[in-house]
C-alpha cells in the first residue's frame, strides 16, 4: 500500500513541495521545520577516545593466541615471467610453518611490476619469516619494461602485458563487439571510429567558429593511497570456520572474495571482522592477494597468521590513483558561454585493468564535447579506486581551462564565468559563499610582482552519493532498557558508526549515549561497502526503519499494558509522551520493563530505490589562497574555503572532518605527493613515507568548512556521503591560485618548488595556454 506524501525539499531559501509515493514500509523523511534532538547536532565520534588512547584494536593490533607471521616475496623485476620458485631452502629454515607460491595459487606466472607477489611464507617470528622469505629461490625470464606513460606510448615500446594486450588502448568511446579479453569486432569497431571522426569534425567546426579558443596540456601524477594501516588481515581457522580480522572497506566484499573466488570456504563459515580500519581511500575493497594468502597460510600452518603488508608492499602493490595526460581545447563566445570542448586523454592503469579515466567533462555546461580517452599500461602496480576516482585529475585540467578561458575573455571574472556555465541547483548558491570567505576581491600582491606573491583560485565539485539498496540493520531493545543497533559494515574512519547510532537514537527518541553501536562483523546484518561515498546514504535509511519499527513494537507493549491508544504515543528525550506533548509519566526504561519477552528485535532492510528528489548529485565549491616565494618556488597554501553539501547533515562535526580530510589530501596531491619510478630497474624509489611526501602538519592550510544542509527527499534520511566530493576540486583550486600568484601556469602536479621555478623561468616563453586557434590535439 504505497502511501503518497508531500514533503519540502531544497535548502536555504530555495524550498519547494515534492510529492513522493513511499515504498512499502518506508517512512517520511525529516522535514525542515521538525524539531530533532540528536540528528543535526555536532557530536564527537563515538570511537574518538578509543582511537586516541590506543584502545581501539585495528587488524594490525590483533594477536590471537598462537599467532605466527606471514611475509610475501615480491618480484624485484618490473616485467618478468616466473620460470620456477624453489621453496626447499626456505622450508628448512627455523620456524617456518607454511609456504605457497603465487603461480600455483593464483595461476599467474607473470610479474608485471616490481613488487608483484611471487611466494609467501609464514613463520613463528617476524625475523624468521623475513629470513625464510629471503631464502626462496626464483628464476625469472626478464623482459624489457616501461614504467612511465611516455615510454609506454613510444613506438616500439616493450610490451607491458601479455598475449595480445596492447600498451595503449582506447577506453572511450568503447569499441563495440569486443569479446571478453579478446579483440574488437572489426566491423563494429569501424562504426565507432566513424562516429568518432564525425564527432571530431563537428566539434572542430564549433571550435573554429568560437570567438576564443584556449588550449592546454595537463599532467597529473600517480598518487598512492598510503593509508596508515597497510592492507592485510589476521586469519584464523577455528573448527573449520575461517575468521579474518581484516583492514577493509568492505567486510562483506572481503568475505565474498574469499568464498566465491577461491571456494574453499562457504560464506556461512567465514566471518570477517573489522571494527576499526586505518584508512583505505578506495584501495581496500578487495581481500587482495594478501587476504587470500593469509587465509591459506593459516590453514596450512594450523594456527592464526598475521598477514599485513609492509610499507614497501603497500606502496608498490596496493593500488594508486593513476596518472593522466590530458589535452584540451575549449571554444568560448564573447558572451562567456562555452561552445565546445575537445579532449584527448591518456591514463595509466599500471599493469592492472583498473579504470584509468579522468572525469574531465562532468562539471559545467560545456557545449558539445568530443572526448577520446586511452588507457596506457605500464609495468607498475595496478591502479585502484582512489577517493573520487578520475575526478581530481579531470578537475585539475578542466578548471584551469575554465580560468584560461575566463582570462582570455577580457574582464570576465573566473567565478562569474563559471556561474554562466553552471546550472547545478545547489552549487549556484555556493559560489558566493566561497567568494566572500576567501576574500576573492581583496587587494593582493599577485602575478609575480614581488618576492612573495599571493593568489586565489576556485574550482567546483560534483558527486553522486545517495546510496542504494543492500543494507539492513538490527535494532534490539532489551528489557533492562539497553538498546543496540547492529550492522556488519565497517567504519573506515568516516564516522559511519556514530552517524548510524545518531539516526537510531533520534528515531527511538533517546540520547546517543543510550545506544550501543555494533559494526564491522559479517555475522551481523548485511551492510554496504564504503565506496562511492554511499555508505551512510545506504545504511542510515535501514537504521532508521529498524529503529522506527522497534519503537512501534515497544509502544504497542506499553499501550497494551496500560490500555492506552498506541497511535497517541511516542518517545522523546527518553520519555514516553502523548501526541500533544504531554508526559505519560513513563520513562523509556519504565517502558522496557513492561515487556514480556527479554527483548524486542527488529531487522529491517532499506528500500531498494531512492526517490526522485531535489538533486541527484551533491555539489560543492572550493576556493584556495596560496602564498608563493618567487625566489625559491616554495608554495604554501594559506587557506582553503570548502563549501560542501551532502544532503541532510546528520552530524556536522563528522561531516566537517570528512571535508577537512579531503582538502588535506587534495593539497597533498597538489603540492607534494608523487610516485617516483626508476628508469634503470623499473622499481619505485620512494616506496616509503619519507620520499613519498604526504603533506605534514605544518603544511596544512587553514580550512574553512561551510556546510549546506539540503533536504533532498531521496530517502527517509536524505543523507548523501561526503568522503569523496571534497577532494575533487582542491588541487584545481590550488593550481588556479598559484597561477594567479605567479602570473604563469604550472600545468603539472605536484606543484613543487622545482616546477614553480621552471615556470617562472620560462614565463617569457609563449604560454601554452594562450589564445590559439587551429592546431589539432
Amino acid at each position: 500500500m504505497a502511501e503518497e506524501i508531500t514533503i519540502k525539499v531544497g535548502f536555504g531559501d530555495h524550498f519547494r513541495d515534492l510529492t513522493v509515493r513511499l515504498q512499502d514500509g518506508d517512512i517520511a523523511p525529516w522535514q525542515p521545520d521538525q524539531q530533532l534532538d540528536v540528528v543535526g547536532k555536532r557530536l564527537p565520534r563515538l570511537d574518538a577516545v578509543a582511537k586516541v588512547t590506543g584502545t581501539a584494536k585495528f587488524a594490525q593490533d590483533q594477536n590471537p593466541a598462537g599467532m605466527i607471521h606471514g611475509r610475501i616475496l615480491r618480484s624485484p623485476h618490473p616485467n618478468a615471467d616466473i620460470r620456477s620458485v624453489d621453496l626447499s631452502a626456505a622450508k628448512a629454515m627455523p620456524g617456518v610453518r607454511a609456504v605457497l607460491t603465487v603461480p600455483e595459487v593464483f595461476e599467474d606466472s607473470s610479474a608485471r611490476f616490481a613488487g608483484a607477489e611471487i611466494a609467501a611464507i609464514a613463520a613463528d617470528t617476524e625475523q624468521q619469516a623475513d629470513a625464510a622469505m629471503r631464502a626462496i629461490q626464483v628464476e625469472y625470464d626478464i623482459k624489457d619494461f616501461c614504467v612511465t606513460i611516455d615510454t609506454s606510448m613510444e613506438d616500439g615500446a616493450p610490451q607491458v602485458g601479455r598475449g595480445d594486450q596492447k600498451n595503449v588502448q582506447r577506453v572511450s568511446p568503447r569499441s563495440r563487439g569486443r569479446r571478453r579479453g579478446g579483440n574488437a569486432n572489426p566491423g563494429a569497431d569501424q562504426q565507432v571510429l566513424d562516429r568518432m571522426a564525425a564527432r571530431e569534425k563537428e566539434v572542430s567546426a564549433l571550435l573554429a567558429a568560437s570567438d576564443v579558443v584556449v588550449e592546454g596540456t595537463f599532467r597529473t601524477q600517480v598518487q598512492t593511497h598510503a593509508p596508515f594501516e597497510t592492507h592485510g588481515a589476521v586469519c584464523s581457522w577455528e573448527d573449520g570456520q575461517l575468521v579474518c580480522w581484516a583492514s577493509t572497506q568492505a567486510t562483506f566484499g572481503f568475505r565474498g572474495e574469499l568464498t566465491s573466488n577461491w571456494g574453499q570456504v562457504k560464506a556461512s563459515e567465514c566471518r570477517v571482522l573489522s571494527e576499526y580500519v586505518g584508512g583505505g581511500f578506495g584501495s581496500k575493497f578487495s581481500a587482495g592477494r594478501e587476504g587470500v594468502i593469509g587465509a591459506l597460510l593459516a590453514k596450512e600452518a594450523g594456527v592464526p597468521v598475521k598477514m599485513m603488508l609492509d610499507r614497501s608492499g603497500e606502496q608498490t602493490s596496493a593500488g594508486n590513483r593513476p596518472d593522466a595526460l590530458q589535452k584540451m581545447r575549449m571554444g568560448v563566445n564573447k558572451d562567456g558561454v562555452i561552445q565546445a570542448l575537445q579532449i584527448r586523454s591518456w591514463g595509466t592503469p599500471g599493469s592492472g585493468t583498473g579504470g584509468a579515466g579522468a572525469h574531465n567533462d562532468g562539471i559545467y555546461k560545456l557545449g558539445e564535447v568530443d572526448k577520446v580517452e586511452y588507457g596506457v599500461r605500464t609495468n607498475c602496480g595496478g591502479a585502484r579506486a582512489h577517493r573520487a576516482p578520475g575526478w581530481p585529475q579531470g578537475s585539475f585540467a578542466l578548471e584551469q581551462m575554465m580560468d584560461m578561458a575566463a582570462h582570455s575573455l577580457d574582464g570576465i571574472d573566473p567565478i562569474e564565468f563559471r556561474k554562466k556555465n553552471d546550472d547545478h541547483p545547489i552549487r549556484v548558491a555556493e559560489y558566493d559563499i566561497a567568494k566572500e570567505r576567501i576574500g576573492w576581491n581583496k587587494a593582493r600582491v599577485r602575478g609575480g610582482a614581488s618576492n612573495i606573491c599571493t593568489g586565489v583560485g576556485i574550482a567546483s565539485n560534483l558527486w553522486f552519493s545517495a546510496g542504494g539498496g543492500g543494507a539492513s540493520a538490527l535494532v534490539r531493545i532489551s528489557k533492562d532498557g539497553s538498546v543496540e543497533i547492529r550492522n556488519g559494515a565497517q567504519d573506515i574512519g568516516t564516522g559511519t558508526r556514530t552517524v548510524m547510532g545518531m539516526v537510531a537514537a533520534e528515531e527511538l527518541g533517546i540520547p546517543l549515549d543510550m545506544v550501543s553501536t555494533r559494526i564491522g562483523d559479517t555475522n551481523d546484518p548485511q551492510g554496504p561497502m564504503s565506496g562511492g561515498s554511499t555508505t551512510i546514504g545506504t545504511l542510515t535509511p535501514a537504521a532508521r526503519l529498524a529503529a522506527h519499527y522497534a519503537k512501534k513494537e515497544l509502544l504497542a507493549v506499553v499501550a497494551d499494558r496500560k490500555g492506552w491508544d498506541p497511535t497517541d504515543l511516542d518517545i522523546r528525550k527518553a520519555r514516553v509522551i502523548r501526541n500533544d506533548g504531554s508526559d505519560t509519566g513513563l520513562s523509556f526504561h519504565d517502558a522496557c520493563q513492561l515487556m514480556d519477552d527479554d527483548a524486542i528485535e527488529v531487522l529491517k532492510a532499506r528500500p531498494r530505490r531512492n526517490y526522485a528528489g531535489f538533486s541527484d548529485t551533491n555539489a560543492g565549491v572550493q576556493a584556495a589562497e596560496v602564498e608563493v616565494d618567487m625566489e625559491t618556488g616554495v608554495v604554501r597554501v594559506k587557506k582553503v574555503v570548502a563549501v560542501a553539501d551532502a544532503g541532510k547533515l546528520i552530524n556536522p562535526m563528522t561531516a566537517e572532518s570528512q571535508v577537512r580530510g579531503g582538502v588535506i589530501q587534495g593539497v597533498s596531491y597538489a603540492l607534494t605527493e608523487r610516485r617516483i619510478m626508476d628508469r634503470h630497474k623499473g622499481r619505485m624509489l620512494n616506496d616509503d613515507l619519507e620520499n613519498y611526501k604526504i603533506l605534514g602538519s605544518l603544511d596544512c592550510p587553514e580550512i574553512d568548512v561551510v556546510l549546506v544542509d539540503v533536504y533532498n527527499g531521496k530517502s527517509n534520511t536524505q543523507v548523501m556521503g561526503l568522503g569523496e566530493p571534497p577532494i575533487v576540486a582542491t588541487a584545481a583550486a590550488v593550481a588556479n591560485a598559484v597561477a594567479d600568484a605567479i602570473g604563469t601556469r604550472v600545468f603539472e602536479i605536484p606543484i613543487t618548488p622545482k616546477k614553480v621555478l621552471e615556470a617562472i623561468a620560462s614565463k617569457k616563453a609563449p604560454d601554452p595556454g594562450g589564445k590559439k586557434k587551429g592546431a589539432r590535439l
Partner: protein
Amino acid sequence: MKPFKVAIPKSVEQASRFQKSDDSPFIAGGTDLLARIKEYVVQPETIVDLKRIEGMTGITSTDDGIRIGALTTMNEVATDGSVTDDYPALSETIMNAATPQIRNMATIGGNICQKPRCWYLRHEGYSCAKNGGSGCWAREGENEFHAIFDNQVCAVTSPSNVAPVLVAYSALIEIQGGEEKREIPAEDFFITPDQDPGREVLLEPGEVVISIHLPAKNRTKKWSYTEAREKQSFDWAQASVTMLYDRGGRKGDHRVVLGAVSPAPLRRDDLEKILKSGSLDDAMIKKLQMKIGDGSHPLSQNGYKVPMLRGLIAQGVRNISGRKEG
C-alpha cells in the same frame, strides 16, 4: 631486519676495539642506522652502542667557545642558551631539520656522521660507487634531489643540516680512536667522493666523534640560515645557504656555505670575497646571484637548484642587512 648483537662499551677505547674487530657500526640515536638495517642496506652482525660512554653528552663552556658532546640530542643543542645566544644559525638549522620526535632521539654526532639519503643507496640491489661497486645510478637516473656540485663520481647531497653551519662557524670535530685523540676542522672533516667515494667524513676505523668544539663567538658577526624544501614537516632541504657576516665589511672575515647541493658542505670563498666588495644592497645581491651557480653541473632533473640558491642567497643578504647584530 636481520638479527644483530649489541655491544655496549663503557669507554671510547673499548668502542674503538669493538668496532675494529668486525667493522661493526656505532649507534647513537639510531634514527639513521636502524632505518638502514631494517631495509637490509647494511646487515651488521653487531652494532656498538655509544650511549653508555660517559662524558659524551651535554654542552660546556670553555675559554675558547663551547664544547658539545657528540651524544647530545639535536633538540638539546638547539634549545641550549649558549647556542641560541652565540651560535644562533646552529639552533635555527636544527629546528628546520626533521621532526620533534627525531630531534629528541637523534644526536649531533650521529647527525654529522649520518649516511646520505640517495634513494639508490638506500635500496637493496643498487650497487654503486658509494657502496663498493662502481658507477652512479642517479647521474643518468632519478636525480631531482641530488647534487649539482662535485657530482661527477657520486651525486649524493650531504644530508646534514648541521654540517654547513659547523663549517661556517669554523667548528673543530674532536675525534678519538683507541687512545689517540685528534681535532679536525669541520671544513676538512666532511669529504667529497673524489677524495673517497665510500666515506662522507674523515673517520678511520675505530674512530669516534666525541665532541664538537665551536670556537669563541665572534661578537661582530651577523648571520643567516635559509633553506628551501617541499614540505615544512618531515622533509629534507633541497638547498640551503648559511651566511656569517663580519661587521668589518670590506675587511671582514665572512662565511658563505652551501648545503644540500653537493656531497659535502660547500664553502664558497668566491662569494665571501664578493661580500667584501661593497654594501649589502641589491647590487650586491645581483653579484652574488651571478656567481653562485659557478662550478655547478646540474643533472637532468636538478637544474632548479641553481635558481633556488640564487633565491636563498638574496634572502640571506636581506636577512643580514635587516637583522640586528646578534
